[in-house]
């Protein structure tokens, strides 16, 4: 059985929690023992930290790990970053309602192949200026 999976990236809420604790980036970095740049890229989401570092951060922020770091599918991030006008534009290019595009970002990945055709997913990823391999994993 072919099982389709979303490509996922790690998103963080470090910035929110850090500001809740009223710590600056520099102070935060000093407590953990890393450079300020590392914290900057962590918050930006460009950096895949080691597990020990993320445990340290979770301990410092007093939050469970899965609240601080969570996996998000790339297609959801991409669709959420688009404006309503752009979404409608893409939907009209594909001859579908834009609700269906939004639905793609909320669907459970176990049922995605039941709802969407594979060729159709290819078309969508082209419209989103990504390749099929960028968004989905088999």
């Amino acid at each position: 059985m072919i099982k389709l999976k979303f490509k996922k990236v790690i998103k963080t809420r470090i910035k929110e929690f850090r500001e809740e604790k009223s710590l600056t980036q520099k102070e935060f970095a000093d407590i953990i023992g890393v450079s300020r740049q590392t914290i900057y890229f962590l918050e930006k989401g460009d950096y895949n930290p080691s597990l020990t570092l993320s445990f340290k951060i979770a301990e410092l922020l007093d939050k469970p790990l899965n609240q601080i770091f969570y996996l998000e599918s790339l297609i959801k991030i991409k669709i959420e970053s688009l404006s309503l006008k752009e979404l409608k534009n893409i939907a009209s290019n594909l001859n579908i309602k834009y609700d269906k595009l939004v639905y793609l970002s909320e669907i459970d990945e176990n049922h995605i192949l039941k709802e969407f055709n594979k060729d159709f997913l290819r078309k969508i990823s082209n419209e989103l200026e990504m390749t099929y391999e960028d968004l989905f994993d088999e």
Partner: protein
Amino acid sequence: MCFFQIIENFPFYAIYQNDYRFIIDRLVMFFSWYYIIFLFEILIVIIYFYFYSKKFVKNYDYKILNEEIIIKRGVFKIKTIIIPYDKIESIKISSGFSERIKKIYTINFEIIKGRYNILIIRLFLILIIILMWIYSLLYHLTLFQFNIIFFPLILLIGFIKSGNSIPGLKNPNIIIESIKEKMINLNQNRGNELYKSNCLVIDNFISNMVSRINEGSTFKSSLKEIREKVGLSISDLAERVKIPIKMIQQLEEGKFRPSLFIAYKIADVLMCNVEDLFSL
């Protein structure tokens, strides 16, 4: 003929003997060809170095820039040497015999290649001297005669200096401090570049290695139990998470500290929390 023989046959000894023709003989011998060559060579060396040093000082110039030092030097052939700060292995302040009289110092920037060049030139000169020595033995010259003839050449070995140097400084510390300041500035700028997201793979790798060294066996993993509870084999898990089988084996033994992304992917496949899988 050795050194002591010359003293023995010195002209004064001849006066004692009241033989004046003998004096002339000895004088001729004293100013024999090797002494003349010696004087001649010393003269050439003095003249050469007088004009050489004048021209050298005239041509010499150096600049200390933000990223490199530029040295312009040479007498016959004018060279421009660019030394980037990150290629400098060490900085050496030296003051040779003649420099010590004038209280002057030289700063040498040692880069690996430069040192190599000087070594080769010096070795080459020493080789020539050894060859000449063998030659002189063949033609029945004594070591004394030989030393007199090639004394200027031996002096030359000391004169050879690295191109990567700033000679004739009365207070070298001023220059060294300004170089240090610029090196520190450069390193700080480099620090920002190093944390560009492309380079973070390396940073991640290093942090993994460091944590592995620091923490020894304090990293606990209950991956094996959870995997068996779910009912997946190692190869199944490896296939789904898309990492090598060996990595999962090492994860189960607690030898390998994963990055957060891998930990999350495994937790996603096994439907559990990361904290359940791994703990410090």
